[in-house]
């Protein structure tokens, strides 16, 4: 038989088989449901209804199992295998997860960078997007003439945002030299001196922050600076617990902290177990680092050695996880311990002082740590590459001729993407607008009678009343941010690819360009679990949402 005819026959038989499968499958599902209904003692008529109900719903149920559940389960299986398209598959257990979560090798490093970038889009992009959406909603909620037109204008970017043509237009608008955005900003800066200073401060801040972020994502060691954030978290919690109005509020704060920190530590310890790291080597020696920093002394043992600075410090310094564990212990004592008021206040005050000193000590020692790299480079006459970009931009306040390099530099690529995302905040705006329309006017009138200011009305009435809409936008925004793909795919270039790559972009490249199905599947499951955990956490801690 002619091969082409054979191919067509093959397709025809498959089509016929599919139809037959759906009919038979639907019948079997209906029969099974009917049998179960019979076993549960339902009457003939009800059993017949059950049969037809399930039989008619089965094409969709079977479709869900075959096209959604099946591939999901299969991808979970692939994530435990070394499977490259076109080659045989080999079971390798947790190896893909170990490589990715441990940042091992080129792929692990790139995955961690991509996760950091996704975190940036979530932590920086989502709040800015929500603020923009809320601001636009407040503007268009005013009962003025022609507002319907502005609502349309603000919403149009939602439809256009992902389109290549629009992203191309953004490329032109964000061109560092001669682009509309920079030309406009420069005109304003030239015309108004205060704006010029504001503009240059903006450039300095954005570049410094992003350069530091790039250094962190490339695993440049931060030395004692790694203790600053956990110490500030401990300090903040101590102050919140001291300021709590009553025992109930205090227990609530402490209990929440225990839950969140406990879950975080469990996740991190599971990750560490998968990666294969040790849990507490030389613990007593390492915890000494905290004491040195609390007493504002340097924890650096060999600041004149480049090897020590690169790797040695991390080998003797305590993990910041121990700080989180201490904060957890403290909160657990306050939440569940039977402490007297005096003891509790003393413990919290002492801890607050210790955490505050630790934050200051960590910051000062961090500066010494960074300076030590410069000293070593000067002594040996070698170029300095530790946080090189950060040092370059932080060393000098921008001259008057400096402009944002938007899409052409890794310093500005992520802010550019966030800016484009903010531009398309119309969907969030619509949600806020609907919520704003639902706030009773009588509340504002009553507040006006009581002499409330506009700000007080906004913070005490508007925000609590639209908190369900805020919650919805946060949940959806966070999920969308963690799944960022299209915009990265379109606006990246050789210079900015690494700095823009999101977790979704990584798994696309790994799966569809490099055909490494196993590792791509593992990356997708890590991302999926992260999204589920964050969403569950948001629902769990949504007490701030006010439902009428």
């Amino acid at each position, binding site marked *: 038989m*002619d*091969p*082409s*005819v*054979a*191919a*067509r*026959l093959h397709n*025809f038989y498959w089509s016929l088989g599919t139809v037959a499968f759906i009919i038979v499958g639907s019948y079997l599902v209906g029969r099974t449901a009917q049998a179960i209904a019979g076993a549960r003692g339902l009457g003939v008529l009800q059993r017949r209804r059950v049969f037809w109900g399930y039989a008619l719903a089965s094409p969709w149920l079977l479709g869900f199992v075959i096209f959604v559940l099946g591939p999901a389960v299969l991808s979970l299986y692939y994530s435990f295998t070394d499977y*490259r*398209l*076109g*080659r045989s598959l080999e079971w390798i257990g947790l190896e893909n997860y170990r490589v990715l979560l441990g940042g091992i*090798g*080129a792929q692990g490093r*790139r995955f961690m960078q991509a996760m950091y970038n996704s975190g940036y889009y979530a932590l920086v992009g989502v709040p800015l997007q929500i603020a923009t959406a809320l601001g636009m909603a407040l503007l268009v909620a005013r009962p003025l003439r022609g507002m319907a037109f502005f609502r349309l204008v603000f919403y149009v970017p939602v439809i256009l945002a992902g389109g290549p043509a629009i992203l191309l237009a953004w*490329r*032109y608008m964000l*061109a*560092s*030299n*001669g*682009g509309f955005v*920079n030309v406009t900003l420069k005109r304003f800066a030239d015309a108004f001196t205060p704006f010029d200073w504001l503009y240059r401060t903006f450039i300095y801040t954005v*570049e410094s922050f992003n350069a530091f972020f790039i250094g962190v994502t*490339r695993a440049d060691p931060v030395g004692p600076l790694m203790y600053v954030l956990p110490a500030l978290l401990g300090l903040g919690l101590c102050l919140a617990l001291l300021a709590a109005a009553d025992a109930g509020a205090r227990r609530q704060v402490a209990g929440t902290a225990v839950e969140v920190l406990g879950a975080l530590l469990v996740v991190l310890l599971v990750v560490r177990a998968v990666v294969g790291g040790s849990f507490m080597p030389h613990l007593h020696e390492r915890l000494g680092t905290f004491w040195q920093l609390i007493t504002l002394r340097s924890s650096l043992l060999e600041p004149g050695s480049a090897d020590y600075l690169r790797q040695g410090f991390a080998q003797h310094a305590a993990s910041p996880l121990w700080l989180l564990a201490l904060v957890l212990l403290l909160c657990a004592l306050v939440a569940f311990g039977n402490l007297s008021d005096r003891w509790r206040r003393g413990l919290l005050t002492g801890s607050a002082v210790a955490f505050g000193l630790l934050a200051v000590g960590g910051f000062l020692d961090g500066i010494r740590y960074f300076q030590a790299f410069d000293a070593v480079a000067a002594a040996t006459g*070698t*170029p300095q*590459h530790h946080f*090189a*970009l950060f040092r*370059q*931009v932080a060393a000098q306040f921008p*001259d008057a*001729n*400096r*402009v944002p*390099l938007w899409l*052409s*530099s*890794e310093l500005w690529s992520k802010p550019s993407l966030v800016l484009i995302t903010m531009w398309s905040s119309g969907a969030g705006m619509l949600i806020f607008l609907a919520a704003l329309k639902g706030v009773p006017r009588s509340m504002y009138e009553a507040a006006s009678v009581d002499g409330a200011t506009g700000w007080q009305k906004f913070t005490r009435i508007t925000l609590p009343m639209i908190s369900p809409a805020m919650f919805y936008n946060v949940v959806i925004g966070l999920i969308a941010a963690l799944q960022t793909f299209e915009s990265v*795919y379109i606006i990246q*270039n*050789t*210079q900015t*690819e*690494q700095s823009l790559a999101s977790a979704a972009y990584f798994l*696309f*490249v790994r*799966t*569809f*360009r*490099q*055909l490494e199905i196993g590792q791509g599947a593992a990356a997708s499951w890590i991302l999926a679990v992260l999204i589920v955990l964050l969403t569950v956490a948001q629902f769990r801690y949504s007490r701030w949402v006010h439902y009428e």
Partner: protein
Amino acid sequence: MRKRTLMLVGLMALLLGSVNAQRTLEIYITGLTEDTMTWFREVAFPAFEAEHPDVIVDILTGGWGDFDAAVAGWITTGSGPDIVYLGSEYAATFGDLLSDLDPYLADWEELSNFLPAALDVARYDGHMVGLPLLMSPRPMFFRLDISADAGAIPPLTFADSVAFVAANSAVEDNAMTKMGFMDIGGGLFDAQEFIAYIWSAGGELYNADGSSAFDSAATAEALKFMYDRRRAVQPTELTAGLPPISGYPIASGLVASGIFPMWNMPPTSDPLWEQIAIGPYPAGPNGAPLVQVFTDWLSVPAYVQDKELAAEFLKFIGSRENAITLSTVAGFTPVRTDAWSELRANPVWDAMLDAAVNYGRAFSDIRASAELRPLIVEQVSMYLSDQQSLEDTQLFLKEEYDAILEDNGYL
């Protein structure tokens, strides 16, 4: 009841009847201009269909951006187009998944008219897995009328090239106003170009044992050259680029030299060509100037059942007449040397062919190319932007490419 049965039988007969209809040959073409697509649809396909009355040729189009995902989907499902258009470096990536075409092409007498370097691109594990379609020598172009007098044009050594670029670059108010050099992506670094400089520095990508040679002196020379040239154009990483260029960069008057594909150059009839010189990439002291030659080729995936028909189409589209027409329409160079004589009449093509003949080196045998490119982009970008030392860059390139080669079964 009888009426319903009759209708069912009629429907079945209709479906079975369609089975015996004409054969369809589906071809996936990537990243070619609309004119080229029109030529395929309106000229080439009808001509093939006239020769094969029982065949309908259909075209699927897509960009390189969709390419990987599309091909992965076809291979996974075992269902897709009969012929797939591939770029230079893809033989190593997809070689296992393509049909061995030796039984259909090895004895084809016209194969001897193809440039051997182009045929190498479509060869995997010693077997033909496709047929070269178009060739694109990618030389450097120089604007003679706007270039400062900085030695001979084209500069043939790394040092002369840096001097040329420095003399022809300008920065005002912390923004570029003229670029002495622009690479194919509009910036100052391209992964394929980096490989070319390793070659022109006298190095290779692989040692005799198959391991990566990124630790070689030639790699170091290539990296230093790219760094020096970058700094000649862009004094710091905080210098703004050129204003957006609409149209051909070389025609903008803002770019003195660059590497561009022919579709991003003015038509060969444009008088501007009188002011454009064509030259090879510069070389290190131990190497020789070269021109990278990219070859796009047509492959037949392994899942295709009617391989013979697919091979017939490859022979048809690879004919001398089609090669000449296609090169005119698509702006590429024919892969058949017997199709060059007409092109030689055009001085631009004549110079391009000379460059390809005298300096050409095929961009082929790039192992695990899908993983090599991101590695080069990541590591070389860090070096060029002062974030990593030369030694560390070479070390990471070598270690990680060796790991990739091992993982992919090359080591």
